[in-house]
């Protein structure tokens, strides 16, 4: 391994600009003559729009235009879409309600846009927005997904009776029911997977610039997938044809899923920039992002586990109601179905599984993929059930897990996933050792002496990354393929531009992708630059989410590098007057085997462009190759996280004492970056379990709409983490990579709640387990105990 090659903890190439304040995020870009747009949003969760009077606003200082849903409708543009079709049990398609970018006659959540004001300055736009008079007729609202399904609930979209989007299922109902009949033990849990607000630190932003000379648009947009944005905005909404719309996603300050989706704001900015014939800029404010960024999770679930007399799991049954909010966001349908139920087997050989999911509309912000997307919810179901079952049976939770681990690969689960490789015992064993599980009893007694309750919780999770192949996701209803592209451009001086369809917003691709190229071509890492996030530079790509950039994106790079090497060998054979089959490429040098004749990579690159001595009939000049890579399967990262914590029963406060994570991510390109991904994922999972809660009141007002009310994890809420890995190679891609971006967020909520319930001695506590919730739970248990005595 070289100091910058695969497996080396190379310091990040992109950091210099970030630590010196030279990053370029969307709001940092300004265009000459730009205007500022401000969205007037509904203060009601559910209401009819009777009338909008924009006259006074239009006359305010600096106002360029005031536009409403009627103006947008007149432009005959399409609405926003959900790009993944899910069918109900009866075969009927999901009920995708119309989603206009600006509401026309009805608003369905607090935050739904009703008008926009465009002005010379943002302050002027805001001042004028105060003068837009909207006459609403308020309607009753529903925010709870279970209540939304009940008779008499307010109906949100006419085309979706009972607010039902779909009733979906997976697995064998009859076989599962039969297995439950024969079970010796059944564990039942009911829980809420709490709604979260993603909260990337850079708020969403868009800057649209229409050029009337070429009739083309440029959009700077904080997005995780600029090409998908361009495709949807062109093909479905129709603001601009694809070849006349350039989307640039410059530095993007975190995404976690929330910047995958195509939102009303970028669409409106594009349209408005043509209407006012000037650039239009929008930057979300944090309170605005709380009521417009797609939220995550929000499941209500009842789950059961059946075991035989020997402690073997024989079946699992799950029913989930998934809240998708007021409209179907871009990939919302797939999250509580194909990204959720397909992982319900966890790391275990469970012969029978049946899962039903009812997706519903409510008067809340749309819900879509958030870090982990369906897999944290699945892991929570499986790992809480297994832990609770072990307690009910009086066996060590690690022993029950070991007894049920999948040990033969490939393994076909009862819920469609085909696990390709793994060693679950290895990650558990290593984690127990690092954590000093044996010493837990003593530590618990020490805590008790200090009046504290100590708990330990496990999550032996599995997840699926790099969702693919395209043919499979097509069968499952996806409107897109999920391959990735790469192009390797070798310059005449031997430096390399690598173009990728992935997009980085914290992942460090500019370093890891360069490590791969440098390693393979034997050139210094400084001689490689990674180009991404601009539809004018990169032809097409699917972007970054679902931990796909390593497994899928880097595989495309490998494929392009293969082609570069093949062509370079042809050139080398010609230059060295040898047979192509005799050329060996090693350490940046092409040599004729068995001789001392060789040519270096940079010299060869120059010859490829000079082409003076080429038989051009046989070899084209130049050295540039592109590739599209479509994987053969999902990848299946897995591992074991252990959370040990202490609760103060007097205050209900929880302190995480130690955290051990042992993950199998397959091949690791840069361990420093991989560890960082685990840290960040765990922090978000701990946030879900202990702090973060999205609360709506009965009228649909968001009660937790700022950092004053929504508890983000801060440095003093978290411990330092012990992070390690085990290794099984992923057989589904050339580098053997599995993906690491979401593992922490997937494992952590279950590990924390298993530790909390272990400490408290009750299974009945929901996330987030805030001090108030824990204190109330302890007091309730004490009262029940006293009553029993």
């Amino acid at each position, binding site marked *: 391994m070289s100091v910058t090659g695969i497996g080396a903890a190379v*310091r*990040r190439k*992109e*950091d*210099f*600009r*970030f*630590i*010196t*304040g*030279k*990053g*370029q*995020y969307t*709001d*940092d870009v*300004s265009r000459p003559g730009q205007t500022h747009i401000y969205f007037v949003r509904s203060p009601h969760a559910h209401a009819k729009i009777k009338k909008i009077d924009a006259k006074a606003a239009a006359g305010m200082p600096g106002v360029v235009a005031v536009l409403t849903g009627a103006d947008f409708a007149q432009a005959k543009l399409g609405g926003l879409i959900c790009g993944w079709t899910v069918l109900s049990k009866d075969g009927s398609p999901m009920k995708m309600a119309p989603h206009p970018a600006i509401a026309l006659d009805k608003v369905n959540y607090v935050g739904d846009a009703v008008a926009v004001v465009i002005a010379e*300055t943002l*302050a002027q736009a805001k001042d004028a927005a105060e003068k837009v008079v909207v006459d609403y007729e308020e309607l009753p609202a529903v925010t709870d997904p279970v209540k939304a399904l009940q008779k008499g609930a307010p109906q949100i979209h006419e085309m979706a009776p009972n607010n039902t989007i779909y009733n979906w299922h997976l697995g064998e109902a009859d076989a599962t029911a039969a297995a439950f009949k024969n079970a010796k033990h059944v564990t039942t849990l009911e829980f809420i997977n709490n709604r979260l607000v993603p*909260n*990337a*630190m*850079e*708020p969403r932003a868009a800057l649209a610039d229409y050029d009337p000379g070429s009739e083309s648009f440029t959009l700077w947009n904080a997005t995780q997938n600029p090409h998908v944005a361009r495709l949807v905005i062109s093909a479905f909404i129709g603001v601009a044809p694809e070849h006349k719309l350039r989307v640039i996603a410059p*530095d*993007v*300050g*975190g995404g*976690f899923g929330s910047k995958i989706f195509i939102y009303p704001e970028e669409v409106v900015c594009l349209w408005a920039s043509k209407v006012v014939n000037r650039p239009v800029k929008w*930057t979300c*404010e*944090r*309170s605005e992002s709380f009521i417009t960024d797609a939220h995550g999770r929000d499941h209500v679930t009842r789950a059961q586990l059946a075991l035989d007399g020997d402690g073997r799991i024989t079946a699992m049954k799950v029913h989930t109601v998934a809240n998708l909010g007021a409209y179907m966001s871009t990939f919302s349908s797939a999250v509580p179905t194909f990204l959720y139920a397909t992982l319900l087997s966890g790391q275990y050989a469970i012969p029978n599984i049946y899962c039903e999911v009812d997706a519903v509309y409510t008067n809340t912000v749309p819900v879509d993929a958030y870090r982990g997307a369906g897999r944290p919810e699945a892991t929570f179901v499986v790992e809480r059930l297994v832990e609770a079952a072990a307690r009910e049976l009086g066996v060590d939770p690690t022993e029950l897990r070991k007894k049920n681990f999948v040990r033969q690969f490939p393994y076909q689960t009862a819920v469609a996933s085909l696990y390709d490789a793994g060693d679950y015992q290895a990650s558990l064993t290593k984690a127990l050792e690092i954590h000093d599980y044996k010493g837990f009893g003593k530590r618990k007694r020490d805590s008790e002496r200090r009046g504290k309750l100590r708990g330990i919780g496990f999550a032996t999770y599995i997840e699926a990354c790099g969702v693919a192949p395209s043919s499979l996701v097509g069968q499952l209803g996806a409107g897109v393929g999920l391959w990735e592209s790469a192009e390797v451009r070798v310059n005449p001086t031997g430096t390399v531009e690598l173009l990728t369809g992935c997009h980085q*917003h*914290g*992942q*460090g691709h500019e370093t890891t992708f360069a490590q791969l190229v440098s390693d393979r071509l034997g050139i210094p890492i400084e001689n490689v630059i990674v180009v991404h996030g601009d539809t004018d530079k990169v032809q097409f790509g699917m972007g970054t989410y679902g931990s796909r950039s390593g497994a899928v994106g880097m595989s495309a790079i490998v494929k392009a590098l293969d082609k570069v090497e093949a062509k370079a060998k042809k050139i080398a054979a010609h230059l060295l007057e040898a047979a192509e089959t005799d050329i060996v490429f090693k350490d940046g040098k092409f040599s004729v085997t068995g001789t001392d004749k060789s040519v270096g990579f940079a010299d060869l690159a120059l010859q490829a462009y000079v082409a003076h001595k080429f038989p051009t009939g046989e070899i084209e000049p130049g050295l540039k190759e592109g590739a599209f890579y479509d994987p053969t399967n999902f990848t299946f990262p897995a591992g074991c996280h252990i959370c040990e914590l202490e609760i103060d029963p007097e205050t209900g406060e929880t302190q995480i004492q130690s955290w051990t994570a042992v993950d199998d991510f397959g091949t690791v390109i840069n361990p*420093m*970056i991989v*560890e*960082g991904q685990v*840290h*960040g*994922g*765990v*922090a*978000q999972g701990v946030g879900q379990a202990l702090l973060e809660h999205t609360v709506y009141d009965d009228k649909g007002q968001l009660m937790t709409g*700022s*950092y*004053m009310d929504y508890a*983000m*994890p*801060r*440095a*003093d809420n*978290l411990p*330092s*983490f012990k992070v390690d890995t085990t290794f099984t190679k992923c057989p589904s891609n050339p580098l053997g990579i599995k993906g690491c971006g979401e593992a*922490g967020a997937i494992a952590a909520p279950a590990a924390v709640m298993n530790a909390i319930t272990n400490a408290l001695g009750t299974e009945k506590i929901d996330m987030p387990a805030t001090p108030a919730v824990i204190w109330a739970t302890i007091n309730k248990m004490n009262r029940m105990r006293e009553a029993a005595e």
Partner: protein
Amino acid sequence: MPNVSMTVNGKPVKADVDSRTLLVQFLRETLRLTGTHVGCDTSQCGACVVHVNGKAIKSCTALALSLEGADVVTIEGLANGTHLHPMQEAFRENHGLQCGYCTPGMIMTAVDIVNRKGNELDEHTIREELEGNICRCTGYHNIVKAIGAGAKAMATGGATAKAAE
């Protein structure tokens, strides 16, 4: 519009501003120093931290007009030319950043912690002191490491740090 003048990163600056202009808006929009970021609207996240007269403040909480004659240092003014401040170097060396958005505020806060608490910082102190800075990417693990290392480096590389201040 009223006029304000101050020193920013060692240079005198002067401009007419709308009286409601916040310091962060003055820096980002008037001076085009876009390294200072805005991550919230309730003074909670700390992405906008800069130094005013040698102390860290959230630049979203101060009106530009209230800082007549102030000495302001932003992330752009921390390095000494191309020579990075030890705290900047520590963030890079310890992978204390991912998306980079909270980073300028984190680094400015970190330097201020060292100025107030000295060069030997334990983990507990660093975590408590970071209460006003939110990062969504790193889980803070490597930020805490970076600040500890940067604090130590500032003791030996203090000349650089002082010159930049």
